[in-house]
């Protein structure tokens, strides 16, 4: 088990290194650049040259890459020159992280609590109206672009009916203390229930929009997996023992059926991070995704680098955790 974890960590480092090279090369091949983004079209050539030198952009690319890598290893990704001008890029990431984690967490909780039970029920009642309609809606969930869904939700619930706030993480001017920057958690910790409720309301629409893709994928894999497990001989053995329905359902069907679901949840973290960019943009939700979008517009390389590298790190770490969880629930992996 320990060897397995160490091996996976080494693989992780290698993957991160490869990603950093690709990222560095790709960002610098984008049209436009930090300088023209900062100065606009009318900046004088002298001012531009000065700014380039200041940002280190006049150095040859390998030199730029090496100094980037050296500093990145120490957590220093340079100074933001677009999103929060003058602030360390790492701070931009850290200040934005709680918002995205909070949003993704709610989204994945919504997706799991609906998708797994629904997947089970749909499989048990295969071919029923419930099954067919959930399969169709999951297809729609995958097919509809997430920003489109986000706009529709925002239009209906915020603009048209006005029952939920249209954007942001908090109503302007509300009196709230922030300890962790997870706004709902902060409200609970400080017993500022109004603030917690307000932050929660701001989360609902973006979380539902963001949940649509993991929901659809997890529903479909749960359903397929349960259908497969129901045909297994050991489920028949369990029935032949006369076990109660809930013992068969949980111990014999779900424990096996959830194994591929767990793997899929890990893979969905990637989709979730990608979806967060679009969702946060639609709802002006001040998280990593929104910072990433702004970073792109302004060619803020330090911020883009830190955000993408950290997103990759999160993705890899989550998948490592998933692999460990996988080994815990599947003894065939553990004892091999």
């Amino acid at each position, binding site marked *: 088990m320990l060897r397995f974890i160490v091996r996976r960590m080494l693989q992780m480092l290698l993957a991160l290194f490869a990603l950093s090279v690709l990222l560095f090369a790709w960002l610098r091949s984008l049209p436009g650049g930090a300088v023209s983004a900062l100065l606009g079209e009318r900046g004088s050539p002298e001012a531009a040259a000065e700014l380039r030198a200041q940002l280190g952009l006049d150095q040859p690319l390998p030199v730029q890459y090496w100094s980037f890598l050296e500093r990145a290893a120490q957590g220093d990704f340079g100074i933001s020159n677009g999103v929060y001008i003058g602030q360390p890029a790492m701070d931009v990431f850290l200040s934005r992280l709680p918002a995205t984690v909070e949003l993704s967490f709610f989204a994945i909780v919504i997706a799991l609590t609906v998708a797994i039970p629904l997947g089970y029920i749909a499989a048990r009642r295969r071919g029923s109206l419930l099954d067919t309609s959930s399969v169709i809606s999951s297809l729609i969930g995958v097919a509809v672009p997430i920003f489109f869904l986000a706009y529709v939700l925002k239009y209906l619930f915020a603009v048209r009916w006005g029952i939920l706030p249209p954007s942001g993480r908090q109503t302007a001017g509300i009196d709230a203390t922030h300890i962790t920057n997870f706004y709902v958690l902060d409200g609970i910790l400080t017993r500022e229930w109004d603030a917690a409720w307000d932050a929660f309301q701001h989360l609902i629409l973006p979380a539902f929009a963001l949940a649509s893709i993991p929901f659809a994928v997890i529903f479909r894999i749960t359903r397929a997996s349960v259908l497969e497990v129901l045909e297994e001989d050991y489920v028949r*053995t369990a029935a032949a023992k006369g076990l109660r329905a809930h013992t068969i359902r949980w111990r014999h069907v779900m424990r096996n059926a959830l194994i591929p679901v767990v793997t899929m949840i890990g893979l969905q973290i990637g989709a979730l991070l990608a979806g967060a960019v679009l969702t946060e943009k639609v709802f002006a939700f001040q998280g990593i995704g929104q910072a990433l979008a702004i970073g792109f517009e302004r060619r803020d390389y330090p911020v883009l680098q830190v955000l993408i590298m950290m997103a990759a790190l999160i993705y890899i770490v989550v998948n490592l955790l998933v692999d460990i969880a996988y080994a815990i629930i599947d003894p065939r992996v553990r004892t091999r």
Partner: protein
Amino acid sequence: MTTATTSTTQPGRRSGREPLLAVEDLRVTFGSRTSRTVTAVDGVSFDVAPGETVGLVGESGCGKSVTSLAVMGLLPARGAQVAGSVRFDGEELLTLSPQRMAEKRGAEMAMIFQDPLSSLNPVVPIGVQVTEVLERHRGMKGGAARKRATYLLERVGIPDPTRRLSDYAHQLSGGMRQRALIAMALACEPRLLIADEPTTALDVTIQAQILALLNELVSESGTALVMITHDLGVVAGLCSTVNVLYAGRVVERADRHPLFATPRHPYTGGLLASIPRLDEERGRRLVPVPGSVADNIPWEEGCAFAPRCPNAGDRCEAETPALVPDRGVRDPRLLRCHYPLAGDRTEEDA
């Protein structure tokens, strides 16, 4: 034996023994309005008394498993239609509620299956898979359940049973897995045990051990055993009565010894000829019954076996043979054949 009919329609019945399981005219069809229906079991009857071992024999697809699943109430509620009667200790099972049926399964009637590896849950320790039966039907919990599970594993010949409780299926050998499944089936001392090809997935030495174990357990406890197999060799050592099935119907039923001595149905004869025998020269290829079930004609149009039958005559594809007492042998026997193999009774005897 009270009347002549009982003695001939119920070969193997010892006088005074009431059957524990009585299957009568069992019929199972698969399919719905949309798809074509398949009749998997077509009017099968047999009984089993306590302490008796009855064999259901026939080649793949003849309906052995479907028969046993119907008895256990394990056929899918949707898609399978079951008709006829299955009485267990006088009580009709086919009309019993699913809840009552589940209370009987594992407690009064148990089943073991063909493939021990796939029949065990891969992610649940063996011990839990034993104790869950005890918990369900005996209300045993914790230490008491584990103690009994250890005893059960020991009784079926698993060495170091305490350690094995926490093992998973993939950590056991094939024979050990089947022993563990037998332990689960016997956990609550069922009165009826159905073994559906319990040895086909195992190698020959292990096969013999498992059969010996079943034999011993059954004779010790007086359990009624239904032994399902495609291998008459398995039947030879175990069963008192043998039902030979073909295409969902019983074609011959007799006590084991007379059946082996004088098979009457040409299909039984073919099965017997395909058993490997110790006194035969090695390397001789076994002759299975020629042809395949694909050649069958429907029972409604005659004898399903006729196209493959070495003895087939004019009547076979014109007239469906009925399962009737066979007057060509001295033992009580039922036979479904127009042109049977030679019997052991001469015309003067009759």
